[in-house]
Every structure is written in C-alpha cells, then in structure tokens.
C-alpha cells in the first residue's frame, strides 16, 4: 500500500513541520525572552556597580586625571579648559549656555528677586510653589511632570484667586495637567540630552589627561577637527534624522506611555480639575474587572484571528493566482497579470471606502445586485443556516451594520482584505517562481514526477522559504491595520446593548464587534464621547510589548541583519 504510506508520510511531515516551525519557535521565544531579560538586568546591575568601582579606581590610581573629570562634573567644560582644550570647552559651554538662557528667558526669576514674593506672600500653612510661579522651562517642566499641577480655577493662592491664564503673573493662572505633562516630557528629554553632554565632558576630561600622561601632548585643534570629521562623520549625518525621530516619534510615545499611569479621562475637565499620577490603577482595572477583561479578550482574539486569516488568505489566493497565470495553460499572461493587480494599484483607503458603499445597507451595490436578481431571501436563509445572520433579520442583508450579524461583518472584512491584498502576494510569488532553477523541474521530469508532486516538493517549499519573512511582516502589519477596520466597518456593528456591562456602557467605551485593538484604542482616545486616554494608553502599551517582543525575536533570528562587513 504505497499510497497510504505516502500519505502517512505527508501527515508526519506536516506534523514535524508544525512542531519545528510553531512549537519549537514558541519554546525558543520564551527561552530567548528569559535570557534577554536576565542579561539585561545582569548588565544593568554590573554596569551600575562597575561605574562606582571605576570612579574609585580612577581617584586612587589617576588622581590628577580624576580631578580634571571632577571639575567637568561641577562645570561641564571646566576640565577641558584645564586640559587647555578650548576648542572642546567652547562648544560645551555654548550648550550649557543655551540651556541656561532658555531657563532664564522663560522663567520669571527677576520678579522673584525684585521682591514680589514678599509683596504676595503665601498665607501661613499654605504651600508655596516656587518653581510653579517663577521657574523656567526646565525647572517648571520637571515640577509639572512630578506634580501634574496643583491649582485649579477659583483656588485662592498667595492672596489672589486663580482665574485665567496670564503670562507674567504666572501663579494666577490655573494649572493644566496635560500641558504640564507635555512640557515636562519635553523638558525631561532635553535635560537628558544635556546630561549626556555633561557625561561626555567628564569622561573626556579624564581621558584626555590620561592620553597626555602617556604621549606627553594634547591633541591639537586641527587634528581634532579632522578626527571628528572622519570618525564622527557617521554621527553627524544621522543627527538630523535622529532629532526628528526623537521629537516627533519618541517623545510622543513617551507621553502616551506616561498617560497610562494617570487618571486622565475625558471626564477630567481641565482648568477646573487636575489629573493625577495614578500608579498601576488602570492596569489593575483592565485585569481585575471582568467586564473590561471580557471586551479585551474578545477584541484581542478577533485581532489575532483577523491578522492571521488576512495574512493566510491573501497568501493562498496570491499563490493560486501566480501558479495559474504562470502555468502552461494560460496565454496572454501579461494581460491577466495587469488585470489582476488592479486592486493593488487602487489606493487601499479608496478601496476600503468603496467597499463600505458596496456593502451598504440599502443602496449598496451588493444588495442592489441581489435584489435585482431576486436572491436576497435565498442568500439570507443560507447565511442563517451558517449562523452568520441572526434569526430576527429581515429585508436587505445588513452586511456591516447588523448587530446580530457580527460574524458576517467579520467575514466581510476578511473577504475585502483578500480582494485588496492578494495581488501583493501574487506579484511577489510570481517573482519568486521565476527564480526556481529549471534544472530542478527537468530532474523531476526525468524521474517521472507528476505536476502535483512537482508542486509539492519543488515549487511550494521554494516559494515558502523565500516568502516566509514577508508572511510574518504581513501578520504584524495586519495586527495594526487600523485602516482596514476603520474605513470599512468603522468597528461596527456594535454589541447588542444587553451584552454591554453597565460599567463600560456609562463610559461609552465598548468596542464594536469588528474593532481590532488599534481601532478600539483610536476610539478610546479620539472619540469625543469616550476619551478614555489612560485606558487607551494601557492598551497601547500592551500592543507595544507584544509587537516589540515579536520584532526583537524575529530580528535576533536573522543573521543577515547583524552581519557586518
């Protein structure tokens, strides 16, 4: 019974494949994760300990150099001056000066000095917020970051009632927690940059003296510039990009991250109320409350199913199309190729909005075609058999809006995604098919292989190996494919009202049945009736961790990525 043996082999192979590809990978992943975290902590602790040991050693063994470092510690650049390296000291002084100028220009220290504090003293027992009233961008920023504001409209403070925003008499204005948080994050990030310059200054003062002891000379100006231009050329050319990324990506991410630890929601009316640091309360809420957990579970499962299905279906259809078009039965290959990549050429945003109309309730193309053909009832009955349409529905089929047709809407989303997405893989796989050496097929022909065997043992493994990384990329892309949900179904249909627990309903924060995590987060943040900023942030952090882990793991597996030549 050669046949059964063969099929058994196939099953065994599939099993082994699954085991290797899926199970082992998961095990490796956690192994890797543990090692990474362990390594990270070990590294941090060791670094911290060694830092102090090195300082101690430096003072003991190289006291002169260490004292030069120390002078840079008290005033960055001073060590450089003592090393007679003005060309290094001046830029460092300039950086320091810029920070000081910003601080003093934005602060009102002059008012503080001119006796205003005495004129408007804080009443006995009343706290006095010096940095709030007179601090500049950095000190006030840090104050705001720590406290998130103290005074609201109508509070009495230093003999005045807090009313409106006023630039000169700062203390008279109410605190705005979100502005304070935002400016605090910016101030903090800029101070970090100052800190790294400072650190560099200390280290450099120390090192330069050591070099001086060893070689007997201090590096000359011209040599230094030349060396910087050569060695630091890489840094110089990446700096503009890095600054942009820091200000437009990293700092905003940091802000969103911090919001997760506050109690900021749309219900905190700023000006009259402040939001406060809240620790892990929001995290606790989503873990402990069964209501939130249910929605989070639903949304997460659907997100994963959606990401998985939409990656796999487009891959399979793309493969089928590529194989058919490239097969010997098709003439006019180029014609079919161009015709069938049309969905890829149409911008996805437009296709998605178009399909929203195609599946619209009454005037939609699909319902129009069905009712013209008189098939509406038959199709509805059929879908009802499948459990996609609820018992009560009558009339036109509500593809994307029927509250009891949640599954139907989900299927439609995957189908539309298939329409939009398959040409990408069709093109990719067509390209890969061209790279398979013809000699493989010739050898197979000599051995008398059937077409299916050729596909099974040559084409498919080859294609899969070449495109596997793209499948993973597609999966992570779809995991966050906001547009595919938002423009098509808008996350709808909503859950039937009786399925939404009271605690979620009062906030209006329930997801729709087709919402994936990212589109739910968008609703939580920007829908003006919801505005659960802290919840949205918590969910963002969860996504962040999930994707980050997958990405790091993926990368660490990719040798070519780290290969340096």
């Amino acid at each position, binding site marked *: 019974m050669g046949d059964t043996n063969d099929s058994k082999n196939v099953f065994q192979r599939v099993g082994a494949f699954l085991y290797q590809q899926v199970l082992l990978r998961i095990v490796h992943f956690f192994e890797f994760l543990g090692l990474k975290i362990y390594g990270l902590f070990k590294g941090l602790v060791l670094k911290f300990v060694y830092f102090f040991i090195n300082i101690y050693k430096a003072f003991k063994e190289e006291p002169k150099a260490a004292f030069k470092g120390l002078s840079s510690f008290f005033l960055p650049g001073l060590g450089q001056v003592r090393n007679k390296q003005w060309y290094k000291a001046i830029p460092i002084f300039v950086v320091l000066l810029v920070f000081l100028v910003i601080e003093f220009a934005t602060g009102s220290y002059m008012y503080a000095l001119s006796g205003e504090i005495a004129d408007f003293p804080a009443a006995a027992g009343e706290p006095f917020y010096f940095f709030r009233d007179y601090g500049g961008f950095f000190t006030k920023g840090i104050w705001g970051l720590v406290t998130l504001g103290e005074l609201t409209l109508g509070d009495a403070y230093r003999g005045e009632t807090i009313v409106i925003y006023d630039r000169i008499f700062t203390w008279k204005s109410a605190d705005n927690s979100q*502005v304070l948080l935002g*400016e605090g*994050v*910016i101030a903090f990030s800029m101070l970090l940059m100052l800190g790294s310059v400072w650190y560099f200054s200390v280290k450099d003062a120390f090192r330069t003296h050591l070099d001086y002891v060893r070689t007997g000379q201090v590096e000359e100006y011209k040599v230094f510039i030349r060396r910087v231009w*050569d060695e630091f050329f890489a*840094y110089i050319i*990446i700096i*503009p*990009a*890095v600054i*942009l*990324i820091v200000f*437009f*990506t990293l700092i*905003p*991410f*940091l*802000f969103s991250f911090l919001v997760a630890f506050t109690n900021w929601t749309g219900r905190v009316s700023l000006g009259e109320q402040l939001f406060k640091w809240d620790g892990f309360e929001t995290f606790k809420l989503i873990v402990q409350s069964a209501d939130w957990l249910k929605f989070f579970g639903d949304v997460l499962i659907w997100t994963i199913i959606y990401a998985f299905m939409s990656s796999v279906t487009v891959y399979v259809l793309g493969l089928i199309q590529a194989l*058919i*078009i490239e*097969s010997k*039965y*098709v003439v006019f290959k180029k014609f*079919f190729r*161009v*015709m069938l*990549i*049309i969905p890829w050429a*149409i911008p996805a*945003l*437009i296709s998605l*909005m*178009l399909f*929203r109309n*195609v599946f*619209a309730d009454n*005037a*939609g*193309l699909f319902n129009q*075609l069905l009712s013209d053909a008189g098939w509406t009832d038959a199709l509805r009955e059929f879908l009802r058999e499948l459990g996609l349409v609820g018992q009560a529905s009558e009339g036109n089929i509500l593809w994307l809006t029927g509250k009891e047709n949640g599954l139907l809407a989900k299927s439609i989303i995957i189908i539309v995604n298939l*329409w939009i997405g398959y040409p990408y893989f069709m*093109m990719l796989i067509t390209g890969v098919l061209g790279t398979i050496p013809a000699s493989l097929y010739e050898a197979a022909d000599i051995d008398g292989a059937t077409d299916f065997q050729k596909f099974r043992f040559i084409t498919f493994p080859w294609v899969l190996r*070449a495109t596997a*990384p*793209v499948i993973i*990329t597609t999966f992570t892309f779809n995991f*966050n494919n*906001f547009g595919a949900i938002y*423009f098509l179904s808008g996350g709808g249909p909503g859950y039937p009202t009786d399925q939404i627990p009271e605690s979620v309903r009062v906030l209006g924060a329930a997801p729709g049945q087709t919402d994936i995590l990212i589109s739910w987060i968008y609703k939580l943040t920007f829908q003006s009736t919801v505005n659960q*900023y802290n919840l949205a942030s918590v969910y963002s952090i969860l*996504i*962040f961790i999930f*994707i980050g882990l997958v990405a*790091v793991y*993926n*990368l660490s597996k*990719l040798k070519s*990525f*780290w290969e340096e*030549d």
Partner: protein
Amino acid sequence: MTVKEKFQRWLKRLTVKKVIIGTLVYGWLGLMIAIVFTPVLWMVSAAFTDATQLAQVPVIPKLSEWSLVNYKELFTEKSTSDQALSDYLRAFATTFMIAATNTVLVVALSSLVGFAFSRYRFKGKKKVLLSMMGLQMFPSFMGMLALFMFFRQFGLLNNPFALTLIYVAGAIPYNTFIVRGFMRNIPKSLDEAAAIDGATNLQVMMKIIIPLAVPIMGFIAVNAFMQPWLDYILPSVIMPQRDTVAIWLFRFMDPLGHEYDPIKFMSGALFLAVPIMLVQIYMQRYLIYGLTQGADKG
C-alpha cells in the same frame, strides 16, 4: 505555416484533459476579473452619472447617460467666495505641497542615515538600528494624542509643514533599512579606492555612493510622495481646519456625518485614484524590488 495549419496542429494536440483544465483555468480567471472589476466599474459609473442617489447608479456604466455634472461641481464648488480654487482642488493643492516636501526630506534624510549605517562602524550602531526596527512597527498615531497637544501648545495646528515633519520622522526608519540594504551591495572597494586618492568622507558619499543609489532613492521618493494622499488619521487630528484630499473624501464618505454624499465621494476618489493607479502600474517593477528588499530584511 499558415494560420490554418497552425490551428489544425493546435487542434490535433488538444486533448479532453486540456480542454477541461483550460475551461476551468479561464473560467476562474474570468470570474476573478469580474470580481475585481465590478466594484471598480460601479465607482466609475457613479462618478459619471447625474444620479443623486446611490441606488440609482447602474452597475455597468451606461454611455448614453454619461454626465460630467459631478466633476463640474468638484472643480467649482467653494465654501467661501474669496478662495481661488474649489474646495476639492484646494485640498488637492495642500496635499501636493505636503507630498512634495515629504519626498525631498525623506529622500535626503534616509539616504544620509542609510549611508551611515551601510558604511561606518560606530558606537551604538546596533542599538540605533534595533530601535529603528522596533519603531517602524508601531503606527505613528500611537503618539498622536501627544502630537496634537504639542502642536496646539506651540501653535502648529493646521500647519502642513509641521504635519510633514511627522511623516518624515515616521518614514525614516523603514526607508533607512531599504537604503542600507541597497548600499551594502555597492562594493566597498570603490570607497577605498577613492579614499586612497584622497577623497574625504563627504566626497565619497556625494560623488560615489549617492549617484549609484539613485534607483533606490527613486523608489523611496515614489513611496514618500504617495503616502500623504492616502493618510487620513494624522491630518484629521493635526489639521482640523485644513483639508487634505483624504479628509475631504472621508467627510462625504462617513454615513454618520451630516455631509454624507457617496456620489461626490466616488467622483473625487476616482479623480485621485486614476493618477495613483497609473503610477503604481508603471512603477510596478521598482515596487516589486522594494517588496523583495523587504523580504530580505524580514
């Protein structure tokens, strides 16, 4: 051999199996083409009718009922009388400005960074690369709340240039990888030879590597130019009072909005989609090149 003879030979070779498979294959392809084109034709049909209701739009465009009334409206309708262009063209011009700036900045910055990463070893390189890799996976709108606040604070709302900077910052990581991958395949012996002849780093970059990297920069440029046309979320938050094309489209698309007008949407969308489609199809091979670059990168 005459056509007739060819046909006869072909007929001779025809077996039942071939006929069946051929029918299935062409049937399948025909079905796929029908599925692909029905919604597209419907859009075309809607754009060129004078119907006011979606339900009145025929699926297959009828040449006899051809009408340009939608486009006339699109190019003339102004919300305030003092503006030179119609609302739609104005949104178009804004988007064009954003797209052009975006292209220039993205190409310039990511080729610099890609060059640095493909040619130099420096401290922190791996960390920067890894964080860029990580960053590229997160949708930029996760920091959008903060961006909205900062922009409001510094008076940058409704400023197209500020919006462009967000796009640029978001696009650099991904494009850096593409450029880096391309430049790594340019032999290092070229730089070394130039360095021996006394070329500085800057000269090596500007005169040798960048000219060789023009194809990949073209690929990046096309992508960067396309992006703003189709982005809805960021502009809707950052430019609440100034339309880009995508915002304009969505306004007439949103069934919950009071301006819901699918016919208007379809005509505007078609006008936007056609040039983009032509570019995409024309640039196909370069885009496939990008895809395979992505495949290498994982």
